[in-house]
């Protein structure tokens, strides 16, 4: 369990990083927090010739306010996201999800950008980013950037819209100020990846749900957005009964995996239960 040998470069700007990627093509691999990449290298599931460490690029770190969005640098660690007031004020769903990721050691190394590009369907940040309607800024060769909506970002198991030679640089999240939020994660032991989890954020008006966003973790090969449930919730009173009815079909059409932690029927069942819990909690009911 030792990686094959590789060269290591540590650029200090995004442009340098892109240049390094351009130079080495598919022989290069980007290193963020290393919490997923290093296990992969150690098991020799991948053996890049060059590792490009983004850890010394100040531009990729931190959270800032951009009018009706907050902007999170791809290299912002989970711990920094968790500690950030902008995030907890305007995207509390993300804070709540990040709080459930692994343990403090991993949260101090792992990054939001790394987790999103890694795109493990059991990862906890895809669903809230999707539910919050985030936009992802991708920088390509030569430094041009493009913006991808979260809906288009997750393509498949471990596959995103970030192509070879590209970098995810920013996560732009529309402000959801004043929205209630809850991330309901189901695990068997603490510090486990989600068996199923549900991210819900809700804007209520006088006991009625005015808007709702719901994302599902590990219910398919990518994080899923439960749009029909979101629609069904609008206008409902924030009561157990009404929410139960509105979320009942959340698992319809999903194709969750069967594995050691649960078969797919069980996951569908969990999704319904957890969605109800998440929405109830987000609605403050």
């Amino acid at each position, binding site marked *: *369990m*030792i990686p*094959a*040998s590789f060269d290591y470069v540590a650029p200090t700007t995004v442009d340098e990083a892109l240049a390094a990627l351009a130079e080495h093509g598919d022989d290069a691999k980007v290193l963020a927090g290393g919490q997923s990449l290093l*296990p992969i290298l150690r*098991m*020799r599931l991948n053996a890049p010739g060059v590792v490009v460490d983004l850890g010394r690029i100040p531009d990729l770190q931190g959270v800032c306010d951009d009018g009706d969005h907050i902007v999170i640098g791809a290299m912002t660690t989970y711990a920094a996201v968790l500690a950030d007031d902008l995030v907890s004020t305007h995207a509390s769903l993300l804070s709540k999800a990040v709080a*459930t990721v692994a343990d403090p050691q991993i949260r101090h190394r792992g990054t939001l950008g790394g987790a999103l590009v890694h795109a493990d369907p059991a990862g906890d940040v895809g669903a809230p980013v999707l539910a919050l309607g985030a936009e992802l800024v991708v920088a390509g060769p030569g430094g041009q950037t493009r913006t991808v909506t979260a809906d288009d970002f997750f393509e498949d198991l471990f596959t995103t819209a970030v192509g070879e030679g590209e970098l995810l640089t920013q996560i732009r999240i529309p402000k959801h100020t004043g929205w209630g939020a809850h991330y*309901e*994660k*189901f*695990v*068997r*032991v*603490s*510090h*486990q*990846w989600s068996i199923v989890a549900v991210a819900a954020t809700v804007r209520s008006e006088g006991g009625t749900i005015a808007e709702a966003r719901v994302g599902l973790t590990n219910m398919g090969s990518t994080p899923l957005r439960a749009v029909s449930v979101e629609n069904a919730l609008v206008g409902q009173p924030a009561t157990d009964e009404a929410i*139960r009815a509105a979320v*009942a079909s959340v698992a319809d059409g999903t194709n969750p995996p069967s594995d*050691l*932690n*649960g*078969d797919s*029927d*069980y996951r569908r*069942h*969990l999704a*319904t*239960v*957890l969605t*109800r*819990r998440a929405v109830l909690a987000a609605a403050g009911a």
Partner: protein
Amino acid sequence: MTTQMFGAPIRRKEDPRLVTGGGRYLDDLGNDALAAAFVRSPHAHARVVDIDASGAVDVEGVVAIYTHEDLPGAVGEPLPLLIPHPTLTHGRTGYALAKDEVNHVGEPVVMVVATDRYVAEDACQRIRVTYEQLPVVVGIEKARDGEALVHDDVPGNVAAHMTQEVGDVEAAMARAPHHLTLDLDIERSACTPMEGKGVYARWDAERDELRMYSSTQTSTGVRAAVAAKLGLPLQKVECIAPDVGGGFGVKIMHPWPEEVLVPWAARLIGQPVKWVEDRREHFISSAHERGQLQRVTVGFDDDGRVLALDVKFWHDNGAYTPYGIIVPIITSTQLLGPYKPGAYRCEFWSLYTNTVLVTPYRGAGRPQGCFAMERTMDSIADTLGLDRAEVRARNFILPEEMPYDHGLLFQDGRPLKYDSGDFPASLAKLKALVGWDDFAAYRAAAEAEGRKVGLGIGCYVEGTGVGPYEGGHIQIETSGRVNVSTGLTSQGQGHETVFAQIVAEELGVRLEDVHVTTGDTRRMPYAVGTFASRAAVMSGNAIALAARNVRAKALRIAADALEVSPDDLEIVDGTVRVKGAPTTSISLGTVSVLSNPLRYAFDEAARAATQFAGTFDPDKPPVADDDEPGLEGKDFYSPTQATFANGMHAAIVETDPVTAEIRILRYCVIHDCGTMINPMIVEGQVHGGVAQGVGGALYERMAYDESGQLLNASFMDFLMPYASEVPTVEADHLETPSPLNPLGIKGAGEAGCIPVSAVIASAIEDAEGFPITRMPISPSELWDLRRRHAGGEVPSLHRALHRALHRAPHRAPHPGLGRPTSPATPATTPRDGSTTTAAVTKETPA
């Protein structure tokens, strides 16, 4: 006065060192050594057609590459079968490096030695092995049907087929008014110590000597095996177990291929070589355990007394049987627990599969046996509508029936004869501790809140302290320092503390003056090893006997010096003094000086022992004919049989009506390991054992797919409980001394984990109202069982039907009941490992 040492809850002497990073584990040694790495089989069953190492030879830093063809003489012969048995008719062992055929994923095929592990692994990746795949046997059912064979020359995959019978089972069964048959299934798990295995060897060419270190539970065993394999005189091989980061059984197996190959290569190359196992290697090339299918048929009377017990089980022994059939033998004998089975027959088949080999893991066959017996007890109670504890009590062996001979042969080939135990007293304590008789009220209150709870119980007897022997050596230096040595090894059990307590008590010295060495063949070449909960019993008694010898000698010398009778002397805090006249005294250090007549004196203390000091009898030699110089003593302890500890556990679990999450609310233990040397250490052992048991009951399994790939060979996928999943263990003790040894002690190391799967199954079943026959169990599986139960596929327990009938009129929550109260409430707030909260358990199903 010296404070009492034996029996006191003294803090562990080794902990400050171990918890502040002062331990020296295998990988802390040998920083100048070459590194070894292995190419291991990616296939579960295949013929090795060709090995092409040409791509690896010129990797810079590669020193040597070995395949089976390179192994000379005994090194290339099959590894030893350590424990033959007449019924092990088809014992098979592997080779240090595979010869022609591989029988499980992870089997070593090529060894690479290089300047460091990075280079060694790079080289491994460039070695091309061509395999011809063979049919794979995974799982007991497939092994049993015998269509595909693991070893061509082992028909039906049967390594051993053994039957033991006492009484006439057929006749007793025919006479019994009631019968039940249970089909049970218990999964594989593994020891997974924090530190994997590791070997480091240095060859001293000038002296033709090998020194090796191994992260082992038996340094004497490894030493003998390596000397034999390498054709070296035993005197030319030293083996040392440094600090070992956990063993739990996997390191009693020996010699592992690496334990032979690393010293062999170190000698051949003439440089030190080291290999440290990584986690993936540990999963796929060390050993697993558990893994049985069982069929129990029982005949019993109207009172629930067992008249005939007929057990058949199929044991998965993995690809090879180097450790013999110890595990199934233990299952077949120890499943009887504290009960009289009437007529008893146990028949087992030990079967080969193309999986990692199976050798003892803490509990060693007992958790499986306990599961079989305790599930049976619960079924009898349910069938007859009797209380589960009462049925157990009716079948107990009573204190006045001790010693109780079952008429069977135990793992040591000696009679299965219980030495002592007071099972009714243990059960009474357990019932009081868990609030057994109040549980109906507790359940009713919980049900009124929409919660599902269940109470489970499990009892076991554990043969501990099996022979053949251990030794103890004690030497008192002129400074008063007491050196204690025993040959078996330590993996964190607290031996430095308990052995020091025994010596402090026996000799009358201060605990801090006692220094214990274990597992060093230079200090104690005769030893067996640390397994089977035997260290305290075997080495503890040997050390006590050695201490008594030293004490006698000290008193004799001091009596001479003080001109009194030895009978008038006592030893307190390292000083020998006259009883009632404590100022007339001599320190043990000075006694040590006097014990060793000298020609040269180096310091003040030694002056008293030189030839011109003191008075002496000119007609006697300085060392008497029947004496030896030095204040030291040695003794061995070798019992006629094992000593049998016992315990009873009870747990209250809650199962979420919606998600089927399983939470242990309370876990209660009554434990009897005879006289306790240190209750704090015993409790620590019990806690650790329960934690491992919880792992086995709820989380751990070895998920092999059909092709023999272990799908969860990492801690990301192999779930183990964290502190957050392990319940607070409420433990109480009974001390029924063993009549078999001078200290009255029994072993405690494995106890905690033995009944946990049985107890948790019992509690889940009680909560759910349908039988649990397979462990471990996950929420997903429980949820599926619920579906099948609702669909009529899984029957209800009799008592669940009965409860449902009688509950109907009282369904509405009783206003006065509220939340259940003591004694059935958790002693502490249950720790909730999941992020879903307890409040959700109040929901009705979605």
